[in-house]
């Protein structure tokens, strides 16, 4: 995008002035190079979100933003139900509650090296990934509903996780207000055999090493030590969330028209929060959040089992589990007072700063861990929510590197086999059923994740704590 089209507020804040039907401005947090690299569609989609009824303050855009569906990916928008505010299936996305969890192993890189190949093979065979993979769990209708209500808590009660994890998961592992009855039969059918599966695309399980510490104090609080190894899982609510997204997107096209909401883009489909469809979507979407939380808890359990085989004395403890495709009811400071708002984060991570009352005691001093997935070659970051994130973007930060190149272009540029070999030479083992899948996810197809997190830090959204480099990457 041409930076000249924005009002530059400071080094990393770019404002789209409200024009036409926009009710609020758009605010993009990025450095100039990231702005230049963003697709023009990001600006267009930000402006479109700003036209939706009940939007509060601004439509915010994170430094990793790219062209999405209706909402830009990397978009944050909060709505006030009392002012005709809406909830949007497009503003949450198909993969409801897609998110990241990072588990600490306490192992050193040197502990992994002697077993790296067999550990990669074992993780690859024990964690179902990719289209056509089969999970070990089949749920009957009663259990499926119990899972949709119970989230990670349900998984733990069934023996697929540990109770101490709950403190380290958003919403304590179980979001309130989930309504399994609002989830269609088709969505449930899609999930019956999917629990504990990773999915495909940009989803992964990685064994990573802490290669750089930026904030010693925060790293100490997060127990992230240089050269130590962590396990990070990126996945979401699988087929259930995809089907809920599909069905409500369709239903909200009609619902928006009936509510008299003029949509500049059909993909922005939404419904007033105070409407039958809006409430039904919220109940179904929260059930999908619980599904994602349960799924990541189960995969975390599988990872513990595999590590337990290789390192019997090692205890994998959860650093944090946070989603980046959600709509949540949160209290925020807006217009001088605390207001209950419906905050959509589409490809954006909640980033509560130090002292936030919703954080567990152990994290309150430093702030919430914000887990940023990079590409399999370039690494990932752990950030901590900044004190200013509340004021800047309803306590939100970026979620990943963001793609710099389409899958299509990546496929034309790289060979999957070559990437696997090149990364192996650098000590990174890739396990993926499809060489083409690897090419589409090539490290070079992503933006420079370092530039994204630096911009997030400079913008006051979250501060860098540690950089993680992959040792093993399991992809679907």
């Amino acid at each position, binding site marked *: 995008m041409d930076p000249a089209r924005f009002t530059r507020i400071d080094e990393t804040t770019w404002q789209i002035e409200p024009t036409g039907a926009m009710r609020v401005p758009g605010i993009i947090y990025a450095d100039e190079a990231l702005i230049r690299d963003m*697709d023009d*569609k990001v600006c267009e989609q930000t402006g479109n979100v700003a036209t939706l009824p009940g939007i509060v303050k601004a439509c915010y855009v994170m430094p990793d933003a*790219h*062209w*999405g*569906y*209706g909402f830009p*990916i990397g978009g944050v928008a909060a709505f006030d139900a009392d002012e005709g505010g809406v909830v949007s299936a497009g503003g949450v*996305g*198909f*993969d409801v509650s897609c998110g990241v969890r990072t588990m600490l192993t306490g192992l050193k890189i040197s502990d992994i090296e002697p077993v790296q190949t067999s550990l990669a093979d074992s993780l690859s065979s024990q964690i179902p990934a*990719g*289209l*056509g*993979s*089969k999970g070990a769990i089949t749920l009957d209708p009663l259990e499926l509903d119990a899972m949709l209500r119970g989230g990670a808590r349900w998984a733990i009660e069934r023996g697929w996780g540990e109770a101490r994890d709950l403190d380290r998961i958003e919403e304590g592992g179980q979001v309130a207000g989930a309504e399994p009855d609002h989830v269609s039969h*088709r969505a449930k*059918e*899609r999930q019956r055999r999917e629990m504990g599966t990773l*999915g*495909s*695309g940009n989803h992964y399980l990685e064994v990573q090493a802490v290669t750089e510490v930026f904030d010693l104090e925060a790293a100490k609080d997060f127990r992230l030590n240089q050269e130590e190894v962590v396990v990070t899982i990126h996945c979401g609510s699988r*087929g259930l969330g*995809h*089907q809920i*997204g*599909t069905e409500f*997107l*369709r239903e909200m*096209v*009609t619902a928006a028209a009936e509510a008299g909401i003029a949509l500049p*883009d*059909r*993909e922005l*489909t939404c419904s007033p929060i105070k409407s039958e469809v809006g409430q039904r979507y919220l109940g179904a979407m929260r059930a999908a959040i619980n599904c994602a939380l349960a799924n990541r808890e189960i995969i975390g359990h599988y990872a513990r089992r595999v590590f337990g085989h290789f390192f019997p004395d090692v205890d994998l403890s959860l650093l944090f589990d946070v989603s980046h495709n959600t709509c949540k009811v949160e209290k925020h400071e807006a217009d001088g007072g605390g207001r209950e708002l419906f905050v959509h984060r589409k490809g954006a991570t909640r980033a509560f700063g130090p002292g936030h009352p919703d954080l567990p005691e152990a994290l309150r001093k430093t702030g919430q861990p914000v887990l940023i997935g990079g590409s399999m070659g370039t690494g990932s970051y752990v950030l901590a929510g900044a004190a200013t994130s509340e004021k800047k973007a309803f306590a939100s930060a970026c979620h990943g590197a*963001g*793609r710099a190149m*389409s*899958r*299509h*272009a990546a496929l034309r540029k790289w060979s999957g086999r070559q990437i696997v070999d090149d990364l192996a030479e650098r000590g990174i083992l890739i396990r993926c*059923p*499809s*060489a*083409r*899948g690897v090419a*589409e996810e090539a490290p070079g197809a992503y933006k420079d994740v370092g530039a994204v997190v630096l911009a997030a830090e400079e913008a006051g959204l979250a501060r860098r704590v540690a950089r993680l480099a992959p040792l093993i990457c399991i992809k*679907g």
Partner: protein
Amino acid sequence: MSANPDSEPTIGRGWEQFPHDADVGLRGFGPSIEVAFEQAALALTGIVTDAGIAATTRVEVACEASDIELLLVEWLNAIIYEMAVRSMLFGRFEVKITGTRLKGILLGEPIDQAEHLPACEPKGATYTALRVAQGSDGLWSAGCVIDV
């Protein structure tokens, strides 16, 4: 949507994929809407795999929408649903459209990871770049972006 330099309209193939930042766009072409929809379905399978697919199992689907563009999304989502719950891939499609109702036949086989090497999993068809239209040459095109 205007032609994108990155898209690959391939002679002898009635479909193409076009780039989207995070995902994949697809378009089917044909002398009728039905053929364009069948070709769009082949493009959907092309997102997952380049391998051949045996037509050993037949699945029937029916869908309906208020307009022809929304019907394309319904059709592609019906295929995505059958792929997911049956763990199958489809390589042949037959479409019959009456007004805004569609009846489709999907022919395919169970997914075999070792044989089909699936590159990614379609999550859903979106309304982004959604367009069903007849060109000045009489050829129909039907396309949208698929979230993968």
